[in-house]
């Protein structure tokens, strides 16, 4: 156990030494890996932020019922009775057309529009809160309300949140595909780096194999090197993303101030960051492993 640990310590030290032996070449390599990983990482961060935003704003499952323009107070009461007796509703409120106009007038930028109107074009409306929040149940309710007499139309108000959610799901797929493509690039980069190292250390590999070194012993420093390049590339990607967020948030600040809402993109939480680094290390290790496997078998006896 102690010799095993010592062997790993030595392999790790040798990987570090190799990294420092050609600093420029390795730095450039790490930069390439960093940029390749920063792309999906950055997209993921933006997506995660949007998702948080969508979750904060997702409203109650509300359905607006707009009455026809010729609906009377009696019609309104009939609908009120129907809503009261309908099960599966968490509540409802009546919004008379005059009140709707007042709300419109009070909205910034829309007051002028309202002032330009000759009469009140807005209909009376009920805003119904459903107790279920799945798309199918809401749609059933909406269709039912729309079919009632004196109802012009019925709307599910949380539609936009659903659409955003669907859009984000598409975005997540896009990030996943991008990440897969660039993970492949990382594997290819480490594969080639290790291949070059193997070529320069051909003599050492041949001699150690001849005097009885196991494949495990020979490949260990290369695997450590691959993981090390991967993890430093991951750190570079994390820093690049952090830098991009810093610049972006600076640009976002005046915009957020204008609308009076706190708009700030935040970086990955620590657990996610750690996972990203481990993933990068794993990819580097895998690329090195492929390379070493391929080149070590050439020395087996025939």
């Amino acid at each position, binding site marked *: 156990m102690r010799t095993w640990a010592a062997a790993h310590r030595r392999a790790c030290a040798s990987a570090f030494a190799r990294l420092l032996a050609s600093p420029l070449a390795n730095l450039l390599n790490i930069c390439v890996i960093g940029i390749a990983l920063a792309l999906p990482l950055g997209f993921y961060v933006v997506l995660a932020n949007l998702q948080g935003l969508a979750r904060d704003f997702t409203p109650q499952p509300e359905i607006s019922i707009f009455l026809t323009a010729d609906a009377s107070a009696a019609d309104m009461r009939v609908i009120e009775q129907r809503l009261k007796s309908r099960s599966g509703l968490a509540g409802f409120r009546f919004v008379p057309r005059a009140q709707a106009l007042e709300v419109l007038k009070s909205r910034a930028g829309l007051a002028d529009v309202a002032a330009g109107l000759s009469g009140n074009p807005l209909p009376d409306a009920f805003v119904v809160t459903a107790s279920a929040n799945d798309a199918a149940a809401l749609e059933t309710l909406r269709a039912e309300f729309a079919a009632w007499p004196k109802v012009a139309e019925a709307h599910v108000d949380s539609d936009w949140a659903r659409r955003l959610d669907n859009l984000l799901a598409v975005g997540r797929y896009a990030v996943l595909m991008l990440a897969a493509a660039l993970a492949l690039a990382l594997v290819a980069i480490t594969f080639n780096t290790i291949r070059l190292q193997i070529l320069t250390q051909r003599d050492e590999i041949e001699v150690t194999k001849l005097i*009885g070194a*196991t494949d495990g012993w020979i490949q260990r420093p290369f695997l450590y090197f691959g993981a090390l390049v991967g993890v430093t590339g991951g750190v570079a990607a994390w820093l690049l993303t952090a830098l991009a967020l810093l610049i972006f948030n600076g640009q976002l600040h005046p915009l957020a101030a204008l609308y009076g809402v706190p708009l700030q993109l935040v970086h990955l939480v620590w657990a996610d960051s750690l996972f990203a680094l481990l993933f990068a290390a794993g990819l580097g290790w895998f690329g090195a492993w492929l390379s070493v496997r391929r080149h070590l078998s050439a020395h087996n*006896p025939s």
Partner: protein
Amino acid sequence: MTQIVLSGVSKRYPGGYDALSNVTLTVETGELVFITGHSGAGKSTLLKLMAAIERPTTGSVIVNGQNIGTLRARGIPFLRRNFGLVFQDHKLLFDRNAFENVMLPLDITGFDRREGARRARAALDKVGLLHKEKARPITLSGGEQQRLCIARAIVHRPAVLLADEPTGNLDAEYATEIGTLFSDFNQVGVTVVLATHDAQLAQRLNPRIVHIRGGRMIE
């Protein structure tokens, strides 16, 4: 007890060249065996078969009861640790000094560093290179490089020394020195198998001589 048994061994290289044909040979523990013959006769191939660097085309090579023809790849490193290999071209690593070259066989087995350093210095002392432990192989003479290679071959105290033309590039004086070294190791119980075309060397040490001509054995 490390016994090497070859029975009916042939080795044909891709392209149809027969390096060895029907060789049967047993090397007992503690023997000093010289394999002689002209270059190209098949001496090197014979040694490579013993160290599992090559596998036989037909026949069997059995070392320590293990058949090299069927030995799995992951078993080969452990078989090779029974041997000390001395190469004509030394195969030293030029990016490290003499001491580190000799440490290599101990490093690969995870040998304790401090005890290993003691052994490496003992091996260097044995071949008369202790004063050059910090020297890079490139700064050593041909004879010194060969002795360094021998130090590396004996540092892990192998049961068998396999040497392929260890005096090939050396003048007579150095060759005698090296030959005496191998004789000394044999005196303390190490099996030595040495391939050489140097007839003088063979005469002086009075070993068992196996002559090979055109891939066939003449004892």
